[in-house]
């Protein structure tokens, strides 16, 4: 549906570096990256709002690289909603219909149906200033959908919302996508949003793509150390592989499943897969390391420890019980353990 080929853009202090992306018809695609990674720039390229140095943008088989935004049949939804403040909710939703050959009466009927489906029916005569955050968000969605676009572009659709609304709106967004059949391209810095909403996705950093795959695969098998820490595998160690053993953080481990062929690479673990305990706590098939507690944090109502093992720091989960009853504290010597199947391996160069 959307095919981006070798997008290149040189800006002062930033380069978008030969980005290739392929998004299938009807899918929900998440482009993930931190602030300044260039993800919004890619979105604006698809919308026709950012001037390319080279590369082509195809939508639905049409080469739209040279077309202005209004000829692309894409609808944009910004994080701050960008509702038109001088128009009512209904007028906002009906704004684009006339440019897509939808007659006024039919347009109004369709717009009302959309507002109904999104629970906004009784707000149709309100001005945006009098809407709550979630209502604004849903109005912006309705406006984008009302002109039956081929592609809906979402710029951080959930990050301006309070946590208690996020869950609700994720659900709404997913529902809308399933009902409408349009192709959704969302950029986000939040991996959880991508996990819940998207089928496939890509990770971008400093203007270069790091990985493009199904979201589940990105989550389970990140391709680079950056992607690994982005999806929550924040313990990343340089590792050496040799004769069926893997060495990192001053320990060498044997009997690990699925060892790679390369000799130098990175091994990574999610903090919630590493448990702090004493040697007797772990099942026999787990792998253990010795270290000392460097820091102990209570985040909300759980505890995490930073443990130093031969010059490498790692973050691990701590049982409440360990802290309160066994008196774990800073500088306590501890054993940390992990199950072999949780260890993920990445090659040195991608």
């Amino acid at each position: 549906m959307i095919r981006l080929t070798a997008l290149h853009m040189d800006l002062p202090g930033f380069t978008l570096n030969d980005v290739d992306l392929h998004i299938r018809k009807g899918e929900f695609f998440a482009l993930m990256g931190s602030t300044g990674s260039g993800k919004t720039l890619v979105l604006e390229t698809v919308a026709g709002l950012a001037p390319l140095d080279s590369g082509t943008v195809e939508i639905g088989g049409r080469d739209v690289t040279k077309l202005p935004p209004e000829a692309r049949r894409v609808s944009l939804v910004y994080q701050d909603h960008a509702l038109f403040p001088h128009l009512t909710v209904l007028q906002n939703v009906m704004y684009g219909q006339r440019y897509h050959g939808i007659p006024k009466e039919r347009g109004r009927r369709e717009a009302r149906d959309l507002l109904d489906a999104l629970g906004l029916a009784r707000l149709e005569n309100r001005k945006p200033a009098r809407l709550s955050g979630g209502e604004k968000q849903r109005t912006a969605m309705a406006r984008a959908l009302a002109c039956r676009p081929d592609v809906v572009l979402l710029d951080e659709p959930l990050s301006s919302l309070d946590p208690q609304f996020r869950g609700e709106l994720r659900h709404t967004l997913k529902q809308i996508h399933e009902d409408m059949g349009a192709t959704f391209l969302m950029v986000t810095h939040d991996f959880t949003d991508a996990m819940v909403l998207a089928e496939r996705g890509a990770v971008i950093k400093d203007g270069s793509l790091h990985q493009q795959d199904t979201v589940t695969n990105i989550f389970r098998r990140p391709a680079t150390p950056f992607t690994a820490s982005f999806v929550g595998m924040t313990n990343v160690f340089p590792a050496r592989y040799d004769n069926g053993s893997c060495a990192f953080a001053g320990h060498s481990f044997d009997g690990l499943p699925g060892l790679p062929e390369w000799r130098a690479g990175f091994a990574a673990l999610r903090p919630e897969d590493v448990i702090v305990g004493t040697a007797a706590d772990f099942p026999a098939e787990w792998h253990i390391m010795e270290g000392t507690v460097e820091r102990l944090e209570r985040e909300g109502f759980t505890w995490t420890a930073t443990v130093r093992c031969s010059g490498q720091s790692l973050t691990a989960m701590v049982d409440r019980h360990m802290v309160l009853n066994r008196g774990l504290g800073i500088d306590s010597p501890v054993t940390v353990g992990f199950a072999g199947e949780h260890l993920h391996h990445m090659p040195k160069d991608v």
Partner: protein
Amino acid sequence: MTISAGLVLLFIAIPLLTTLTAPTGEILLETLNDADVLKSVWLSMTTSAMAAGLAFVFGTPLAYFLARNDFPGKKVVESLVDLPIMIPHPVVGIALLSLTSPNMWFGEFLQSMGVTIMGTRTGIVCVLLFVGMPFYVNTAKSGIESIPRRMENVSRSLGAGSAATFFRITLPLCWRHMLVGMIMCMARAISEFGAIIIVAYHPMIAPVLMYERFTAYGLTYSQPVAVILIVVSMLFFLLLRSMSLPKSEAQ
């Protein structure tokens, strides 16, 4: 601090108040019935209004361009726009006369078109537009800047072309700024004197008439005209303040 602040306010207010209260009611009434005075005030107002209208038509695209584009040399262009504020007023008059004097090609061209600048309403409007333009362009520009670009982007992505976007989104959201800019342009135009006296002593606009009364008959006979002009300026002021820009309408 308050004392020093108060002094400044008095320094501005007292001369104006003194002038307002100087003429007796009788003289003021007489002046209000003086056909020359009324004609000149009317001329001042109509030419200023025309200048403001022209500033809107020609200045809006420039304001939009400056608000929405960053380019090397933007500062130079912005300086150029501000220049008429800083050029001594008689120099403005001299400059416009220099350009349109019949021994220049442009002046010749104008003459062949039947346009005369020196001593005509056309000339007055030209001068007033020249001195008032920066006020309009700067106010309109800041109005356009206050509208998030993202709104225009969304409008484009929904299928509206750039012209439709301007008329359906940009203009409805910043017409207040544009109106304020026009009022400021008009107020500045009404106050102009130094350039007008060079380009068009006749037909007499109000400040020129007052100057003539002052040189011919002295302070006492110029004061009633001054009162009328202060009152007209104040009316513009009230108009301007009643339009005071809402700070966050675009949110």
